C-alpha cells in the first residue's frame, strides 16, 4: 500500500503504527504513545511510593523494594517518558513547522525510535534479575556493587541516550538544511527554536554520561577498577560525569515544553508573541549556560571548595533568560483576546507551577541553603514542580494543542478542563507540603520517617492519588475522540504556523505544494499604519 493510500485512510488505521516506518509523523506518534505507557508505569511506581509513605512506619513495601521503586520511578519518568515524549513531539512537528517533507535522515529517525524498545525492555527486565536500587543517580560505589539489574539499567540508559543523540543529529540537520523557501531563521516557530537549543545539549552532554556508564558497566562486568575505592577509585569522578549530563538533561526536558507553550500563548491570546527574538535567544542561552552548572548537585560531596561559588553564580545566572521568557509570555497574554481552551489552561498552569519550581531552584543554588536542604524533600518538591508542574504540564498542553493536527479529530473540551483542574490541584497538593517537610528536616529516599512529618506526607499522598485519577479523563478522551470525535479541519485553533496550513492529519508528503513563507508564525492582525495626522490620544499609549 503506498504511503499516500495509507495516509488517505482514516486516522483509525492504527496498524501502521506498529511496524517500521520512516515517515516522521508515524515515528512521532510511536514515540508519544510508547512514552505515555512508561508514564503510566512510572506513575504506578509513584503510587506505590506514596502509599508506603501514608504512615510513618508502614511495612507495605520492604526497604529493598522501596529503593528499587524510587530508583526506577525516577529512571522511567526521565529516560522513558519525558525525554522521548518531547522527542516524539519534535519528530512529528519539525518537518511540518519548517515546510519540509520529512526529516533529513528518515531511516536514522526510525532507528532512533526503535532503540527505545530494547532500552525500555532492558530497564523492565532489570526488575527480574535484582533491580537497580542505587537511585536514578547511580552513585558509586553502591552502583558498582549490588544486584545484576543495575548492569541492565546501565546498558538501558546507554541505548536510550544513543536514541536521543541520533534524534538530535536529525533535528539539527533538518532545521539547518531543509527549511522551505522564505523560512529564515527569524521566521521559524519558537517550538523549532527550542528543539534546536535542546539538540545542542543532547549532543554535547549525553556522551559524557555514556562514558561514565561504560565505566560502571566495565567495573561490574569485567572487573576494572575505575570506582574501586581500595584501588584509588574516586566516587566524585562519577558524580562529575553523571551530572555533566544530568543537569543539562533537565533543560533538555523543559526547553521543548517551553517551546510548545510559546506556540500556544499567541494563538490563544490572538496576539503576536512578545519578544520573539528574545525568547529564541534565551532558549540558546539556557542551553549553553546549562552546560556550566552541573556541580551545584555536588555542594555537599566534598568537591573542591574553591569551585563551589563559581557554580553557584553560574546557576543563578540561568534564572535570567528563564525570567525573560516568563515575562515575554506574560506580555504576550496581556491585553489579548484570551480563549481558555484546554491547551491554554495547561500553558497557564505551566507558568505558575514552573515559577515555583524555578524560584526554589534559585534557593537551592545558594550554597548556605543547599547545605541544609540537600537530599531532603525540599529538593523532591523543587524537582517535581519543574518537571511535573513544568514539563508534564507543557507536554499535556502540547498534546491537547496538536492532537487535532495528528488525528484530524477534536478532543472533548469538558473532559480536558476536568483533567486540567485535577492535574493542577493534584500537583500543588502533592508537592507543596514536601517543601515544608524538607525544611523541617525530612530526608529523601527514606522508606519510613519521623512521625512529625505524617500530616505533610498524607497531604502529599492525597495529591498523588488525585494525579493518578486525573489521567483517566485524559486517556478516555484521547482514545474515544480518535475513534469518534468531531472532525477538526485544517486549522481549528486559527493558528499561523505552517503545520496548520495543511490537512489534519497531513498527507504522507506533508504539503501538496512546498509552502513559500512571507511572514512570521505569529503575525496576527494588520500591521499598524501610523499617519502624520494621528491624534495625541492615539499616539499616547
Amino acid at each position, binding site marked *: 500500500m503506498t504511503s499516500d493510500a495509507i495516509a488517505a485512510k482514516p486516522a483509525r488505521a492504527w496498524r501502521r503504527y506498529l511496524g517500521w516506518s520512516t515517515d516522521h509523523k508515524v515515528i512521532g506518534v510511536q514515540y508519544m504513545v510508547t512514552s505515555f505507557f512508561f508514564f503510566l508505569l512510572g506513575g504506578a511506581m509513584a503510587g506505590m511510593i506514596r502509599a508506603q509513605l501514608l504512615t510513618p512506619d508502614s511495612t507495605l513495601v520492604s526497604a529493598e523494594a522501596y529503593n528499587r521503586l524510587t530508583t526506577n520511578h525516577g529512571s522511567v519518568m526521565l529516560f522513558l517518558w519525558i525525554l522521548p515524549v518531547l522527542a516524539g513531539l519534535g519528530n512529528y512537528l519539525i518537518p511540518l513547522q519548517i515546510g*519540509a*517533507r520529512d526529516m*533529513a*535522515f528518515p531511516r536514522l529517525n526510525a532507528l532512533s525510535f526503535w532503540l527505545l524498545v530494547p532500552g525500555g525492555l532492558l530497564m523492565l527486565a532489570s526488575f527480574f534479575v535484582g533491580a537497580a536500587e542505587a537511585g536514578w543517580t547511580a552513585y558509586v560505589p553502591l552502583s558498582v556493587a549490588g544486584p545484576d539489574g543495575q548492569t541492565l539499567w546501565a546498558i538501558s540508559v546507554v541505548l536510550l541516550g544513543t536514541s536521543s*543523540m541520533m534524534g*538530535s*543529529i*536529525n533535528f*539539527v*540537520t533538518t532545521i*539547518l*538544511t*531543509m*527549511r*522551505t*523557501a522564505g*523560512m529564515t531563521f527569524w521566521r521559524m516557530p519558537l517550538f523549532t527554536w527550542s528543539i534546536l537549543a535542546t539538540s545542542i545539549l543532547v*549532543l*554535547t*552532554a*549525553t*556522551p*559524557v*554520561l*555514556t*562514558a*561514565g556508564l*561504560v*565505566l560502571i558497566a*566495565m567495573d561490574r562486568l*569485567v*572487573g*576494572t*577498577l*575505575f570506582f*574501586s575505592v581500595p*584501588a*584509588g*577509585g*574516586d566516587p566524585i*569522578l562519577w558524580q*562529575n*560525569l553523571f551530572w*555533566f549530563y544530568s543537569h543539562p538533561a533537565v533543560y533538555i526536558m523543559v526547553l521543548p515544553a517551553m517551546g510548545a507553550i510559546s506556540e500556544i500563548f499567541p494563538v490563544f491570546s490572538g496576539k503576536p508573541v512578545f519578544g520573539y527574538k528574545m525568547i529564541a535567544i534565551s532558549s540558546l542561552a539556557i542551553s549553553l549556560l546549562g552546560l556550566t552548572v552541573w556541580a551545584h548537585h555536588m555542594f555537599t560531596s566534598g568537591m573542591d571548595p574553591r569551585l563551589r561559588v563559581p557554580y553557584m553564580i553560574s546557576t543563578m545566572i540561568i534564572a535570567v533568560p528563564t525570567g525573560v521568557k516568563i515575562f515575554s509570555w506574560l506580555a504576550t497574554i496581556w491585553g489579548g483576546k484570551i480563549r481558555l481552551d484546554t491547551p491554554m489552561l495547561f500553558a497557564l498552569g505551566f507558568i505558575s507551577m514552573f515559577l515555583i519550581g524555578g524560584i526554589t531552584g534559585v534557593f537551592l543554588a545558594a550554597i548556605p541553603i543547599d547545605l541544609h536542604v540537600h537530599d531532603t524533600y525540599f529538593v523532591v518538591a523543587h524537582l517535581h514542580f519543574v518537571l511535573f508542574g513544568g514539563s508534564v504540564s507543557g507536554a499535556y498542553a502540547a498534546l491537547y494543542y496538536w492532537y487535532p493536527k495528528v488525528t484530524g479529530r477534536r478532543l472533548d473540551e469538558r473532559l480536558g478542563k476536568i483533567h486540567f483542574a485535577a492535574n493542577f490541584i493534584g500537583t500543588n497538593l502533592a508537592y507543596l507540603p514536601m517543601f515544608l517537610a524538607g525544611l523541617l528536616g525530612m530526608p529523601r529516599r527514606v522508606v519510613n520517617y519521623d512521625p512529625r512529618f505524617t500530616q505533610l506526607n498524607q497531604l502529599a499522598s492525597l495529591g498523588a492519588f488525585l494525579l493518578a485519577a486525573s489521567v483517566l479523563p485524559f486517556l478516555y478522551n484521547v482514545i474515544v475522540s480518535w475513534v469518534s470525535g468531531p472532525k477538526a479541519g485544517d486549522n481549528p485553533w486559527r493558528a499561523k504556523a505552517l503545520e496548520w496550513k495543511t490537512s489534519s492529519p497531513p*498527507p504522507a*508528503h506533508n*504539503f*501538496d*505544494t*512546498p509552502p513559500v513563507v512571507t511572514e512570521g508564525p505569529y503575525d496576527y492582525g494588520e500591521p499598524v499604519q501610523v499617519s502624520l495626522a494621528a491624534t495625541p490620544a492615539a499616539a499616547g499609549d
Partner: protein
Amino acid sequence: MTSHSRTHEDEFRAGRELSLDHRKLGMWLFLASEVMFFGGLIGTFLHYKATIPSPESAELDTILVGINTFVLITSSLMVVLGLDAIQRGNRRGLATFLGLTALLGAVFLGGQVYEFVSLYRHGITLTSSVFGSSFFTLTGFHGLHVLIGVVWAALTLGKVLRGAYSAQDHVGVEVFGLYWHFVDIVWIVLFTIIYLI
C-alpha cells in the same frame, strides 16, 4: 498528482544557501558527540593520572607508539590524497589511496596489539590497577574506532571498484574522510596525554 513532489535538490536548498551538505553536517554533529564521549574518558584518565601514582607508565614504549602515530598520520594523508584524486575524477587513484588507508590502519592496530600484549606480559592489565583500567579503556575504545574505520575504508573501496563516486558526486568519500581524520585527531591527543606528558 506529481506537482507535489520535490526534487532531492529542492529539499536541501536551505542547506546549500548556508554552504552545508546535509550528509557532511550529520557527520560533523556525530563527531561533536564523539568528542564529548572521548572527553569523558580523557577526563577520567587525566584525573587518575594526577591523583594516583602510576609506576606502570615507565613500561610504555614511546618510540614504538611514536612510530605507530606516524603510521596513523600517514593514513590520514592517504585519505585526503584519495579525496583529491576523486575530485579530479580519478577513481583508480581513489581506490589506491583507500587501500593504503585501510592497510596503514591495520598496521596501526597491529602496533597497538603488540603494545597491549607486551604490557600484559609485564602484568599491566585492564584489571591490574586504576592505571591499567583507564589506559586500556581509553586506547581500547580508540582502537575500536580505528577498526570500524578500516572496515568502512574497505567497504568504500569496494564501492569504488564497482564504479561508485565521480568528480561531481563523492560526498560519501568526504564523510568517511571526516570520520577517519577525527580518529587520527583523537590519537594525536591520546599520544600526548598518555605517552608524552
